[in-house]
């Protein structure tokens, strides 16, 4: 199975620079996700790899073969489209056999391979159905089967699960991962859903406005976001902005001070004194203190705030808390039944918060 190398890829549409010097590598047998908000260039990048867009600059290599200028039909790439693009005038059999007929595979072999790929996506016996007779989830699985039946070197997926409802999407994520692992096929997966990227990826490449912002494993991106954008994109995050005031613990930690007098302790990441930073906190890091007198050891990062919003989600409650001039959100156990307007005390462990750069 192949290794994909994308080198300095650039593509503009008129004045819009959709992709700017994008460079990354997809490792054999692994899933690489292109993640980012709408308009970040991830789909354009994918289409350049597939051959449906011609890059202005840069090269694409598949297994050391330069494929930048060769037409899509000669690249040996299987592609799954966002709206499946199944051919409505052909049955499932027709859709799957098409690629094999082009390659002049004999009919008995075609039948065999179709049977095999249909069982892989758990749709045995569906050969004679038409796409319009199947549900969205089934069509999506046929679209995947179609991309795999001719055993391509690499698989490209353009937000394949976006059109499915939430529950089905979650199921299909796992099915995709299982299928991909079983076949050991290399995959490049475009998505705007950060949860999806975290679940399925071996490597995530985050794009914003055409440029790569950060790439790494899901854990890297989640725990060590390079800047505020990545921190906020990869998961719901609250931010408190301030400046680096001083170092502690032999420069292992920093104290961030905000304009309205909050002092927050977090871990140092090569910051300078006075540098503008954002303190990022995820939804699960705020720890409420019910009885102030009981906690004397956690004097660091203790704050008072007021509940300004409360959303009941069954097992948890989503609170919005006003701290100084800032609003922070947290998911909290439903046992803390705070009312709107109630004053609360909470603390943040320095391990749980991430001090990030603005840019």
């Amino acid at each position, binding site marked *: 199975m192949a290794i994909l190398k994308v080198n300095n890829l650039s593509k503009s549409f008129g004045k819009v620079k959709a992709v700017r010097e994008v460079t990354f590598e997809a490792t054999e047998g692994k899933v690489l996700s292109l993640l980012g908000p709408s308009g970040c260039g991830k789909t354009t990048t994918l289409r350049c790899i*597939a*051959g*449906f867009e011609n890059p202005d600059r840069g090269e694409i290599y598949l297994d050391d073969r330069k494929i930048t200028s060769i*037409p*899509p*039909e000669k690249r040996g*790439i*299987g*592609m799954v*489209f*966002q*709206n*499946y*693009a*199944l*051919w*409505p*005038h052909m049955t499932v059999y027709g859709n799957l056999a*098409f*690629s094999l007929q*082009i*390659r002049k595979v004999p009919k008995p072999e075609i039948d065999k391979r179709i049977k095999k790929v249909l069982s892989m996506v758990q749709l045995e016996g569906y050969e004679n159905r*038409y*796409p*319009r007779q199947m*549900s*969205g*989830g089934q*069509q*999506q699985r046929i679209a995947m089967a*179609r*991309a795999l039946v*001719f055993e391509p070197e690499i698989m490209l997926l353009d937000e394949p699960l976006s*059109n*499915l409802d939430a529950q089905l999407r979650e199921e299909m994520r796992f099915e995709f991962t299982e299928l991909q692992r079983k076949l050991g096929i290399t995959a490049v997966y475009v998505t705007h859903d950060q949860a999806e990227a975290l679940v399925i990826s071996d490597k995530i490449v985050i794009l914003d406005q055409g440029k790569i912002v950060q790439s790494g494993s899901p854990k890297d991106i989640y725990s060590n976001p390079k800047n505020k954008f990545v921190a906020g994109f990869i998961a719901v995050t609250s931010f408190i902005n301030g400046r680096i005031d001083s170092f502690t613990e032999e420069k292992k930690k920093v104290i961030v001070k905000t304009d309205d007098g909050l002092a927050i302790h977090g871990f140092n990441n090569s910051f300078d004194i006075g540098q503008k930073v954002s303190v990022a906190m995820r939804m699960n890091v705020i720890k409420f203190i019910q009885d102030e007198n009981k906690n004397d050891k956690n004097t660091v990062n203790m704050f008072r705030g007021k509940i300004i919003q409360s959303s009941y989600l069954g097992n948890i409650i989503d609170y919005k808390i006003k701290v100084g001039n800032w609003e922070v959100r947290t998911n909290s156990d439903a046992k803390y039944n705070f009312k709107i307007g109630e004053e609360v005390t909470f603390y943040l462990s320095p391990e749980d918060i991430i001090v990030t750069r603005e840019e």
Partner: protein
Amino acid sequence: MQKSVFRKTIEIIIFTVFIFFLFTPVLSLGIWSVALRWYWPHTLPQKIGFDYWLQALGITKSLTLGAVNVVPAFLLSLGIAIIVVIITMMIAIPAGYALAKLKIPALLKGIILILFLLPRAFPQQPVFLNLMLMFNKIGLTGTVFGVILVHLVVGLVFAVWITTSTFSSIPPELEEAARSVGATRLKAFLKVTLPISAPGLIASAVFVFLTSMDEFTGTFFVGLPFVTTLPMTLYSASGSNIQFASVIAILLLIPSILFMILIQKFLKAEHLGGMGG
């Protein structure tokens, strides 16, 4: 669900009116075509016979003030229509595909489409009069070739717009999916785009055919004096012999009605869809 008697009555009335407006003209033509003698104030013909039909079809010789054999004109109209359809589609399909699929700047695309619209944008008689004068200079008046050219221009107006619209409505991902599994552009067109766009293309062809069969003004100016198509015989007859004219009118209606029946069976939305869940 119980429909009230009132509601049912209204529906029947509307249906009857609809049928009335649809079929009465044809019925009227039908009665005229078999009326041998019909003078006011009788509501129905006094004498009925198929004489004019037989004369029109060349089965019996015509008498003075009677009908002439229109079969040659009918066959000529038919032949011209078929040739025009073939040539028009040979131009309109690639043109429509290019205008729909290829990356052409919007301004250029607009200009080309407007160009294809222009022949119909002006009053027909001045346009065709002028055309006749120009064709006369190069010896194309009175020739079948000249008439075919006129029908081509008229037919292309509709054909190019319809094919462009048909190809535009096919999602590009369908062709891209074909190419991603190994099909060349041509193969993707033949195996995916063409079958899916067939209903629209056939509708376009039928439209061109019917337009050609019925074309009068241009054919009149360019075709005279040697080329006589069916609409022209209708024009000549309508001044003198209404029964004969009615026969020709019904003959002209036959292809339209036949195609309507065929299309109604063919254009069922069986092959539409297939995109997304």
